[in-house]
């Protein structure tokens, strides 16, 4: 059904591809725009900026989110900042440098043309956000301030305290509010997309369920945009919000959209460790703490002494030992894996043994408590709220946690999936971060897609679609609607004995163990055997009280966990097939003698895009490869020594 994957990257030199492409792209005239309806699912940085931009241009937009207000999408939780190649610091930054850092940070597994375009529009994003009133940090002269972030040698990160995501999202949300008031955007909060509707092979609508009333409804449109975020919650515990889920993209996958690189997940090294089975989510502690904190574990295994009672000679500062030149500032993936290693050896700390110390004692002795308080006071406060421990007087405990997913639905240069009309933006697509995302790049990509890419590329599709919007009584809508209803009924009728969360937790632990920071073929095969059993039990033993025609949060979660139980298998299949290490995907079989990720460019410099083959039952998905060609950058082994 699918031929070769056409990335539709325009010809010409890298630097002028996007501008030439825009110059010749098809347009929709202002009078015709109001005849088009566009569905945008998700209201985070990508969805919110896309919906408001398209509304402003004159399209009629329907925007959906599961939260009670579009202002609450999980983009709001991003702390650090947003990158742009403004070179305000006069330190040699440029569009090319941002492009190169992003490609290299992604371990050479992303498309050159997409990443270059991202770097190119980064500057426009800062202009746009300042104009909206985003209160970025400023210097005393009144100009914008920057800070540096991992993976770059320049200061290019713009920030608003530790709440950059919040302020950028509120900027997009306020733009969206303006369009809602103007009537160009119709907002559907507390509404979840449960299926994609295809008419003659084109994405022409969705089926939704109101989380308040349970009403299942069909919506038709001329095009569908998914901006539904990542799938980190497949691991149960992650830094994602509770509601984040894979349902929209996974249901699109089941309708024929290709899912690309699902095994690429980012695991952040500095999070507050899991404290027990009750835990519902994990909280990130900014990576900046590693500038002054020293990471260590006891040399002895199962050492239960208080940290203050462990003498210097019996501590292992393992990052400093293993990576003398980078020390505690070793890159994210290396730091995460090293923490796992020492805990696997039985040297982890805390009640669960899954934690390492991040110790500020030396920094406090050197700089004084006051300086540390000024630099990190808010983080120490958050830490104390969650753990009840005072990190000024005893070391913090940290452990890696799932944070972001680089994989997502496959899209071409226009951000359109292989299904005509289905566009995918933000974290939900796979496109710009390769196998590892650099800090402060997620916000950049979300807003680039929504403000500056989709408004140019969506009309290319729409221009040929005037008058082709089906009515919601089209048989395809009726069919999809009844499938959705049947699925809800089936779930409610199991009336078993196990809670939804118990399945989610079990799946999460399995994936964390077999498809987390380090993977190997045997472990992945084990997971691939276990997941179908778990899924089988789920469909025979879940307990969901209440009905589908009401506010029913257990039912909501049930639908999401059911999709995670299928998606987890796809993730492991991809991780097994990608028989190399790259970025966040570390296959233990493929490492250098020093334990670094060992890429295999000859066989794996390509995107893995999976096609659903199941017909009711699960069948092995079909692999399509999009070769990645590197015409501008030279493939190199990342080195941290």
């Amino acid at each position: 059904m699918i031929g070769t994957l056409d990335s539709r990257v325009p010809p010409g030199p890298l630097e002028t591809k996007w501008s030439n492409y825009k110059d010749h792209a098809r347009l929709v005239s202002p009078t015709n725009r109001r005849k088009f309806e566009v569905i945008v699912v998700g209201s985070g940085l990508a969805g919110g900026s896309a919906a408001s931009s398209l509304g402003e241009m004159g399209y009629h937009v329907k925007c959906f989110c599961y939260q009670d207000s579009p202002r609450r999408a999980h983009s709001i939780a991003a702390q650090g900042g947003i990158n742009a190649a403004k070179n305000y610091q006069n330190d040699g930054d440029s569009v090319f440098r941002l492009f190169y850092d992003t490609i290299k940070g992604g371990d050479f597994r992303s498309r050159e043309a997409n990443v270059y375009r991202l770097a190119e529009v980064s500057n426009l994003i800062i202009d746009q956000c300042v104009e909206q009133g985003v209160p970025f940090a400023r210097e005393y002269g009144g100009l914008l301030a920057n800070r540096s972030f991992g993976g770059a040698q320049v200061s290019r990160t713009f920030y608003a305290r530790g709440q950059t995501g919040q302020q950028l999202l509120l900027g997009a949300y306020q733009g969206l509010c303006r369009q809602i008031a103007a009537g160009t955007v119709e907002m559907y909060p507390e509404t979840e997309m449960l299926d994609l509707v295809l008419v003659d092979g084109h994405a022409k609508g969705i089926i939704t369920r109101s989380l308040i009333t349970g009403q299942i409804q069909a919506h038709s449109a001329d095009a569908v945009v998914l901006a539904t975020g990542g799938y980190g919650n497949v691991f149960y515990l992650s830094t994602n919000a509770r509601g984040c889920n894979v349902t929209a993209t996974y249901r699109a996958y089941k309708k024929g959209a290709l899912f690309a690189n699902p095994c690429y997940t980012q695991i952040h090294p500095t999070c507050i460790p899991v404290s027990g089975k009750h835990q519902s989510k994990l909280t990130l502690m900014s990576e900046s703490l590693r500038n002054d904190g020293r990471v260590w574990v006891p040399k002895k295994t199962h050492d239960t002494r208080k940290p203050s009672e462990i003498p210097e000679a019996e501590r292992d500062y393992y990052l400093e030992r293993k990576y003398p030149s980078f020390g505690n500032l070793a890159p994210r993936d290396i730091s995460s894996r090293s923490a796992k290693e020492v805990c696997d050896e039985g040297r982890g700390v805390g009640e669960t043994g899954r934690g390492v110390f991040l110790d500020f004692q030396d920094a406090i002795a050197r700089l004084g408590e006051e300086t540390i308080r000024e630099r990190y006071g808010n983080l120490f406060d958050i830490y104390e709220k969650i753990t009840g421990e005072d990190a000024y007087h005893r070391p913090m405990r940290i452990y890696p946690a799932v944070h972001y997913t680089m994989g997502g639905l496959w899209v071409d240069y226009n951000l359109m999936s292989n299904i005509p009309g289905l566009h995918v933006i933000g974290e939900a697509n796979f496109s710009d971060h390769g196998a590892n995302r650099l800090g402060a790049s997620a916000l950049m990509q979300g807003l680039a897609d929504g403000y500056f890419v989709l408004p140019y590329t969506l009309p290319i599709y729409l221009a040929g679609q005037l008058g082709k919007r089906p009515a919601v009584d089209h048989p395809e809508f009726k069919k999809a609607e009844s499938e959705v209803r049947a699925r809800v009924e089936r779930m409610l009728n199991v009336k078993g004995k196990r809670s939804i969360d118990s399945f989610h937790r079990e799946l999460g632990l399995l994936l964390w163990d077999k498809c987390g920071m380090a993977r190997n073929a045997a472990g992945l095969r084990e997971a691939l055997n276990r997941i179908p059993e778990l899924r089988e039990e789920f469909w025979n033993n879940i307990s969901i009280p209440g009905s589908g025609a009401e506010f029913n949060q257990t039912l909501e979660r049930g639908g999401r966990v059911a999709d995670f139980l299928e998606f987890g298998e796809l993730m492991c299949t991809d991780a097994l097939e990608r028989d190399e290490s790259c970025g966040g995907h570390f296959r233990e079989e493929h490492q250098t003698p020093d334990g670094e990720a060992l890429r295999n460019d000859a066989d794996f410099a390509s995107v893995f895009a999976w096609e659903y083959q199941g017909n009711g039952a699960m069948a092995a998905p079909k692999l399509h490869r999009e070769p990645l060609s590197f015409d501008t950058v030279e493939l190199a082994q990342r080195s941290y020594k």
Partner: protein
Amino acid sequence: MNFKLRVWRQAGAVKGRLVNYEATGISPNTSFLEMLDIVNERLAVKGEDPIAFESDCREGICGTCCLTINGEAHGPDHPGAACQLYMRRFKDGATITVEPFRARPFKFIKDLVVDRSALDRIVQAGGFVAARAGSAPEANSIPIAKHKADLAMEAAACIGCGACAAACPNASAMLFTSAKVSHLALLPQGHPQRTDRVLKMVQAMDAEGFGNCSNFYECEAVCPAEISASFIAKLNREYEIATVRKRAGM
């Protein structure tokens, strides 16, 4: 730890009531919402209707959670949202009363879930800068004094949870509204629409049925984002100036 919960249960328009639940075997490191998760998981397995409550980020920034705990919006651990409250804050064996945010403009949905879309409509009335993507000038073309930008950020930090209105005896949303009006009035980008914005937002606030500020400052006390009540003074000032300007046809 063990707790006795008195939880507000209400479905639809029928008047709700407080129902007793036991939360047993709770670790002190459990968050308040995780404690409710545990109670709910036990209810669901027994086939009983779990307690409806909303939450999302669970780190105090999204503003979704909206619980009144022992009579205080977001509970006893200020500043912070209910999701940042941990059970070690309570005495073992304590009785804890859990209710939704109550304010007339917040319509009941179920149990501890209320509809706060009234706050969205206040922003829709004018809480924005009309800035079309693609037409913005170079970001550094308008310098903004650091102290002004910092003050704007303090106002912009509002998470939109509605605790201010829930805590206020008059159900006033003036802290919420003043935060947005002040944030945009403090920045030059917000100036062209300054007059119109404050008039429309206050009008929307009144139309939704929120009351006026009568200087209790309960809002400031419970605000998880530590928004200062002095912004309410700024809102009043902005409103007065705008009224005069409007009357004068300026």
